[in-house]
């Protein structure tokens, strides 16, 4: 009787073990397929990256950039005189806009050295609405402000 129960238990265990092994095996296969798929994907991604890098290399080619710069920009090659080191910089300018000062804009105007002039990059009619918006601004500072504010 004990033998028979033992037999039944063993058979049951065998079936369970077989089912378990089968499941593991099945999962392993699924994983292996997944792995192969991922590897393939990685390879494809790498190929794509390589293609994009090659394309970037073409776009970034100095000859092409030089050609485009010549056509669309008004830049000149840098002259040796235009290089300088940081220790040749003049001393720090007086900080006329101290935090907490009563009239920062007035202080700014007092210290302005550069004559205010309208350059080509500032739209001419952009200056008028700026002054009408902010009536407290003295007219002399208006171009400077519109220069900073307008695109």
């Amino acid at each position, binding site marked *: 009787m004990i033998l028979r129960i033992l037999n039944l238990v063993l058979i049951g265990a065998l079936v369970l073990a077989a089912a378990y092994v089968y499941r593991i*095996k099945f999962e*392993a296969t699924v994983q*292996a*397929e997944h*792995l*192969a798929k991922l*590897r*393939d994907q990685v390879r494809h991604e*790498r*190929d794509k990256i*390589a*293609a994009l*890098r*090659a*394309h*970037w*290399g*073409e776009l*970034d*080619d*100095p*000859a092409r950039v*030089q050609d485009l710069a010549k056509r669309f920009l008004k830049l000149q*090659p*840098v*002259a*040796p*005189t235009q*290089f300088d*080191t940081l220790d040749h910089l003049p001393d720090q300018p007086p900080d006329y806009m101290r935090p907490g000062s009563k009239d920062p804009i007035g202080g700014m105007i007092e210290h302005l050295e550069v004559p205010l002039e309208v350059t080509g990059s500032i739209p001419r009619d952009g200056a008028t609405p700026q002054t009408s918006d902010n009536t407290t601004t003295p007219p002399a500072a208006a171009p400077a402000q519109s220069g900073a504010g307008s695109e």
Partner: protein
Amino acid sequence: MSAIAEPIAEALPVAPAEPWLRRFKRVMFYGRNVDRSAKARARVGLAIVGFVVVYGIIALRLVLFGIISDSRTPQRIIVDDAVATARPDIRDRNGEILAIDVRVPSLYAEPRRIIDVDEAVELLTAVLPDLDPTELRARLSSKRGFVWLKRDITPEQEKEIYRQGLPGIGFLKENKRDYPNGPEVSHLIGHVNIDNQGIAGMEKWLDSHGLAALHMAGLATDRLQKPVVLAADLRVQHALRDELVQARDHFHAIAAAGVVLNVNTGEIVAMVSEPDYDPNDPRQANEPSRINRLTTGVYEMGSTFKAFTVAMALESGKITLNSSFDARMPLRMGRFLIHDFDPEHRFLTVPEIFYYSSNIGAARIALSLGTSAQQAFLKKMGQLDRLRTELPESAAPILPRRWSDLTTATIAFGHGLSVAPLQAVMGVAAIMNGGILIPPTFLKRTQQEADELGKRVISRRTSLMMRYLMRLNVEKGTARKADVPGYYIGGKTGTADKVVNGRYSKTKVLTDFMAILPADHPQYLLLIMLDEPKATPETHGFTTSGWNAVPTGAKVVARIAPLLGIEPRMDLPTADQLILASLKQSR
């Protein structure tokens, strides 16, 4: 067996108790004296053994499948695709890509599986008009298992052909080498053939250094190989090439070439030999006019060789900067007369000989030291042996057949000995960098590696004096047009008459210019070489180096110095004060 025998003995007496019908059957089926139960036991035993064996085999196979099957599937995919082998990327010193592998589809056919050849030919030529129909038909009608139809088709063409659904036509993705910068770096990196094997330049060097063996073993299929980093700087290379192309067109020269060399490490930062070719379309590469003039051409370098002559003189100790030589009249050597281009008709000191570029003076210096001293010095500077770099292409210098006194005199000013320009660059770099001869390289190299490779050929002192002379030549001499403010350039010009039909031509010249920057602590050496420049209105009819190679060199320096990280310094004192003074201190 004895255990079985016992029950048999017991069973026999029981036998008569058996019903008669069963007994009858037994006797009829099996014979009178056969014991069925014993036989059955034996059979069951046999069956057990059989089943154990069969299931054992099945279990074993299962285990084997479990182990092997994983590695089999991905392998098949790779073999399907990787026909042409992968190559490592080539990058410049800043990581810019010079050469990279991209995957492109290629079209193949399996002629045995094609059903209707005519239809296939018709449909394929519709998509790929450059396929020759008769050749295509011949290929498809052959009995071979596999033929290439067209390598490297576009993805659109692939889609279209795929949609036609022809049996026996298929695609393989292949690695194809792409050179995004086109002709910019052509001679430097070379190119590959249709099977992605390097056949020129650095590409060939890659193959000869292990890559070919990897390919044979079928291992180089992945793109995970380490990129190869060159010493070249793409931006410097472009600036040099751009200026050289302009100079070549401006002076109507048949060729222009240039090198930028780091004198302290021997790294070749840029190398251009114009006309060049597009490595993406290497068919032009075989035209003889497109050879790399810097390594495969040999030239008489002209007056730049005076740098060697003067360095030799100063190194010998017998001649100092204050020695002077008779240059009052042309030097007669047997049947020949050695002239100066722009004679001074007086005694010239060594610096004057250098910056007036006096042939007579240089010849007299060499003659005073003797032929064997000159040979030994040039040998030491690597000018008499073939220079080998990573590039497979190289040319041996052409030495004079008989090294007479006349030869000594002419070699002193750069005629009679033809060397590869890169070789001369290496020699002058050694004179400038403090006296260490470093073999030039196209691969990135650290200062330590260079120090290990380099060997001292001249003293530091001589090198300092030569720097002084090079700077003096820009301040007072033939290279005045090279004085870009801020970079303190030193340089030596050279104009060599070309040999046409065995005689020196009066009109066809090769001009070159070697510039060092900055002259007080040289970091880079620049060579500009123009082959047969013509006179233009601006040059007032002159074709000498000072009028064409030197201005070109100045333009190049102005462009490349910021790229090379050389800081401009304004208002520097003259060579007498800056370099000569440090010479006196070192004494």
